[in-house]
């Protein structure tokens, strides 16, 4: 188990390196324009002197290879560069906002899990029932709904009309501020997990070993607890891991909508202001986060399923 863990953790490294390379390439295909666009706000012409100074300061006029080497060596020392705008180290900017993002993502996932898994379970145990139909209609609707729209409507209802919750912002970091963004962000994983859980449980219920369990004289409740739950969990865990990826992506929009001070809104602001070092750094951190969660999921998976450890 220890060796398996170590191997899975080490496997993150090459992926991160390739992603870093990919990001570098994407942002280098149009060399030199960033400094120009930084000042091209449409109101006044870009000042060539300013551009030259910026190019000088950030080494943007050096050859591509040299820039790449600098970029990689800096990365190896956890130096993500310096912001064009604020001149602060990117890593500091990200650090300041990491906690808020983590809070939001975890709260959203917990919300999604707590509702979706029991719902999917019950729906699968009574296929064709009213609850099953409602759950499945709800799931496909949840997957088709633009989350920020739902967030907007909830903001309208719960914050502006009913005045139950703050409409946006981090506030003093209280739970009340977290509710609306977390629920909004949780809707997509909720819908998907309800669907996966239902499909997974239905699959397991049709398995031969469930017939064996019934032939032992087990009650329905015990069959579910002793034999269905763990097997369905394998599928659920996989989906949770995959969902984290799109969750982080969607969080960008939700953070912006609710003015949540996470790395998502940092990314959007930096894209809008073309603060490339911050954009690069944020994306890298998001990918790393996703990979770490996926690895954790793989390890949980291996702990649940004895067949994995074998290979």
């Amino acid at each position, binding site marked *: 188990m220890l060796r398996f863990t170590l191997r899975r953790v080490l496997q993150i490294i090459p992926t991160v390196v390739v992603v870093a390379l990919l990001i570098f390439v994407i942002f280098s295909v149009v060399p030199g324009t960033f400094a120009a666009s930084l000042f091209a706000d449409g109101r006044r012409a870009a000042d060539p002197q300013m551009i030259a100074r910026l190019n000088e300061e950030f080494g943007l006029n050096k050859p591509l290879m040299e820039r790449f080497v600098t970029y990689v060596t800096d990365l190896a020392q956890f130096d993500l560069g310096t912001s064009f705008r604020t001149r602060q180290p990117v890593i500091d900017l990200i650090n300041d906002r990491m906690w808020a993002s983590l809070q939001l993502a975890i709260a959203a996932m917990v919300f999604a899990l707590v509702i979706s898994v029991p719902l999917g379970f019950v729906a699968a145990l009574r296929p064709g029932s009213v609850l099953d139909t409602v759950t499945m209609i709800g799931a496909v609707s949840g997957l088709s709904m633009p989350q920020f729209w739902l967030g907007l409507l909830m903001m309208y209802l719960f914050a502006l009309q009913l005045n139950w919750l703050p409409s946006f912002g981090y506030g003093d970091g209280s739970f009340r501020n977290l509710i609306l963004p977390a629920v909004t962000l949780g809707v997509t994983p909720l819908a998907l997990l309800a669907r996966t859980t239902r499909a997974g449980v239905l699959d397991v219920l049709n398995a031969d070993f469930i017939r064996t369990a019934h032939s032992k004289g087990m009650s329905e409740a015990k069959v579910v607890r002793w034999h269905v739950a763990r097997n369905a969990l394998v599928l659920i865990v996989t989906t949770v891991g995959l969902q984290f990826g799109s969750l982080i992506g969607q969080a960008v929009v939700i953070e912006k909508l609710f003015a949540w001070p996470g790395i998502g809104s940092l990314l959007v602001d930096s894209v809008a202001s073309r603060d490339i070092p911050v954009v690069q750094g944020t994306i890298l951190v998001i990918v790393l986060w996703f990979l770490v969660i996926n690895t954790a999921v793989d390890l949980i998976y291996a702990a649940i*399923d004895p067949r994995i450890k074998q290979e």
Partner: protein
Amino acid sequence: MTAPLLDISELHLGVAVGRSVNRPLLKGVSFQIMPGEAYGLVGESGSGKSVTTLAVMGLLKKPLAVSGGEILFKGQNLLELPKREMRRLRGNRIAMIFQEPMTALNPLSTIGRQIAEMFVLHQGKSWDEAQKLAVEALASVRVPNPDRRARNYPHQMSGGLRQRVMIAMALACNPDLLIADEPTTALDVTVQAEVLRLIKELCAERGTAVLFISHDLGVIASICQRVGVMYAGCLVEENETSALFATPRHEYTRGLLGALPRFGSRSLHGRKRLVDIDSIIADRSKLTETRFIASRSAEEGGQP
């Protein structure tokens, strides 16, 4: 005369569509199994062998439903038994082994635990005690290193071993009746013989009656005292195993036996050819019209 352990009479069963039964699968099947007797059911796939066993176990799934007849187990009609009572019998008094040992065990649970469940369910044992009994049960089906094997997962075992585990599980509570649905079909020939011998010996030792389902007459002959031949949802012939093999009376049984390869059998014209079942049977549609059920003689029943 001793009372039969299992007495199935006029069992009708079909695919239920709406309120009325649409397609009949069993058309009035009747047979009895005496305590300690090994009874074989043969027939081609789709003849209704497996659904008969599922009906006895009360494990028929939704579109399938019993539409008439009785299944008496120790004089109790299983079809009218409340769910709770039926659960108490299932696994405890009537146990079952399935065809596919590869998928019949939960892949995420140790086999020790899966056997132990039987003791927890039916004998109210604690998990610790049950675990110890499970090791004993494994030893009784001659699994080497039962201690270590109990901690194994199904994927770490061969098909033959898994089927032994299934047998250990089924016999855990010393049931009165063991239903074995093609238990050796999915196994290698050499392993088949071992598993068959195991079932035969263990059941004889404990006086457990066996309802043995197979399409393989050879397997049936080696284990059963009495055989029923099923065709298209009907029991077309029933007799003592030796009598049935010596003088098959029903056309379909003759067809089945003709399709069986025999070592060294010769007819007048030299080597007897293996025949296709359809070359013997003239008209399949008339097969279920005649039935040959030999009555039991008084001293029968029980282990020979």
